[in-house]
């Protein structure tokens, strides 16, 4: 019963992990959205090193597992991650939410600033331009993907503070400020960690969360396979592994 490896996330990394484990360990793939390749549709919420608790449309699911793989993807940095000082006005949105809301007509700024130069910045830009917005892009690390249709692109500019209350009015950067009526946070990528007990280094937990920007198929596959190797090592099944991994005697690298 305890031989299963629970994988949270049925994206590219999670499925690569499940594939790498096929024939070597029993796997249970959990995803909160309906996804091809997911065995259980539920949101994983708690892990105690033995049991994973998930909550889904069919009720709570408890999965006894010998190891847990977190493959829940990555998101752009939030305000605290970016170290942005200033006020906390309305109109400052994480890129994933901004894209979804713009698509539903619930977010229609006229002169927003998008912070970022990678995949999420490009998505946010496209979604906002679609609504007719005049978008300024501030890319702290430069452009990682082609950015088109922005009114202005400022590369290598560090955002410092958000100003305005109750609504956002300005983004202050090192060496300049931009008047704006919205700010979209689309810079960088950090792993999404939502399972209590596996947030910052969980017991018997491996992570498959590449933060390459833009993401690549190879990156996801490698992350999934590496997590599969660590999960097998955690379960003591390292000896059954094929030739593409390291010595079966090497200690698990959590």
């Amino acid at each position: 019963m305890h031989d299963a490896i629970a994988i949270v996330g049925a994206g590219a990394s999670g499925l690569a992990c499940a594939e790498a484990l096929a024939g070597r360990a029993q796997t249970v793939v959990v995803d909160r959205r309906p996804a091809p390749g997911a065995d259980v549709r539920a949101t994983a919420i708690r892990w105690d090193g033995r049991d994973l608790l998930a909550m889904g449309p069919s009720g709570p699911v408890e999965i006894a597992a010998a190891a847990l793989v977190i493959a829940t993807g990555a998101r752009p940095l939030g305000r605290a991650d970016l170290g942005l000082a200033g006020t906390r006005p309305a109109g400052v949105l994480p890129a994933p939410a901004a894209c979804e809301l713009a698509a539903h007509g619930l977010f229609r700024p006229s002169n927003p600033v998008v912070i970022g130069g990678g995949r999420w910045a490009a998505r946010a830009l496209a979604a906002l331009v679609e609504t007719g917005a005049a978008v300024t892009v501030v890319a702290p690390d430069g452009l990682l993907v082609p950015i088109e249709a922005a009114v202005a692109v400022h590369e290598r500019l560090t955002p410092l503070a958000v100003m305005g209350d109750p609504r956002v009015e300005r983004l202050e950067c090192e060496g300049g400020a931009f008047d704006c009526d919205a700010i979209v946070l689309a810079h960088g990528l950090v792993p999404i960690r939502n399972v209590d007990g596996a947030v910052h280094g969980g017991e018997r937990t491996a992570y498959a969360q590449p933060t390459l920007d833009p993401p690549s198929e190879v990156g996801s596959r490698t992350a999934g396979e590496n997590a599969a190797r660590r999960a097998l090592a955690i379960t003591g099944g390292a000896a059954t592994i094929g030739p593409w991994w390291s010595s079966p005697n090497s200690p698990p690298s959590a």
Partner: protein
Amino acid sequence: MQSYDVVIVGGGVVGCAIARRLSFTTARVALVEAAEDVGEGASKGNTGIATCGADCPPGSLEAELVTRSSPGWEALCATLDTPFRRIGGLAVAQTAEDERGLERLREHARANGCEAEIVTGERARAIEPLLTPSARAALHVPADGIVDPLRLTIGYAELAARNGVDVLLGTPVTGFRTGGERVTHVETPRGAFGAGFVVNAAGIEADTISRLAGGEPFSTWPRQGQYWLLDRDIGARFHAIVGGVPTAESRGVYCVPTTHGSLLLGPTARDGEDRADRAVDTASLDAIFAAARRLVPALDRRWAIKTFAANRPASEPGYRIGVDRNRPNLVHAAGIRSTGVSSSPALAELVHDVLGRAGAPVQDERPGAVAALDPVPRLLDHPDPAVLFGRDAAYGVVVCPCEQVTAAEVEAAFRVHLPPRSVDGLRKRTHATAGRCQGSMCLAELARRLAARA
């Protein structure tokens, strides 16, 4: 024109607590609040400590109200669907001077009738294992608690509204009409309301309200506090509120576990001019983190999920509670600078009594008044998710994975007298978007649910 026996100005924790108390009487009561929700000022930017009063100035009205409120928190919060935990507090001494300060603190505590014991550093670390090894001694105050100040304020207001109080949001007071010595009407952009009595619970704007009403002159000013919010991953490991030894200038920085399991670090205390300034600055935030790490070395910025600032209503003297010198039907509940949450239960009782003595019709009990709100169980702290799911299948839909907020909880937040009007209002009621991804995953879904209600 609408007329009320009592118009309360200000929907912070103080005004809402008074509204709840008066809602148990037959008085016709309105609460007017300038913002689009209750609890938008100091009440949403504080540590969430419900102190037992150990460190209040002995003999002060503040000490009296805080100590009188303390024993009732469990019972009160049970009626307001508000989380509360009496986890105790440690004031930690790391120098010889600090240790002398502990003696003084213990005397304060005893003078206030609060249980407080000076413990060794070793014993303090047994109470809170995360505490620095350089703790020499600590004052342990077991009756200190933590409360959700947003749910408390909203709970007060919701119960008041249930019992017939008109809670008028987005309604700033622009002036008063008077007749002789008395205030007769409260003017707002939504029209004027007749008022038998006016309660000034306007927090930082209490001086403005008194001036507009022709009441006694005093001044209130913003004392800004900045805070860090850290992840449940570290907050849930805390067993007690941890602070240093307060000095004459400041109570210093605390590490406060929240009722949601996260951790607050702060506040700073800086008197300013600009009442609207709620900006954080890097230097202050760095100083808070450094001070907190001196108490708990394990703290690390990788757990940081949010920084914010709020202004407490400072005034000298504080706790200006009573009938105005010029206006016999204006009652102040002002200058409650940092213990508004902790004193609110007894403070509301006092204001009720003051109103009664001044002639307001607040003696008779309202027949059939509701004493408690129906609790909405939360997935995050429920021991058995299967029970929740059996009760409502919407508990199976986790909308905010970081804070484990389900569709059942979000929808319940709408089925009340004072529903949220914004995503931020939903956050205050359910904690959705308040977690480590700060709405990256759930904000769009919440905005859609909100739009569907509009």
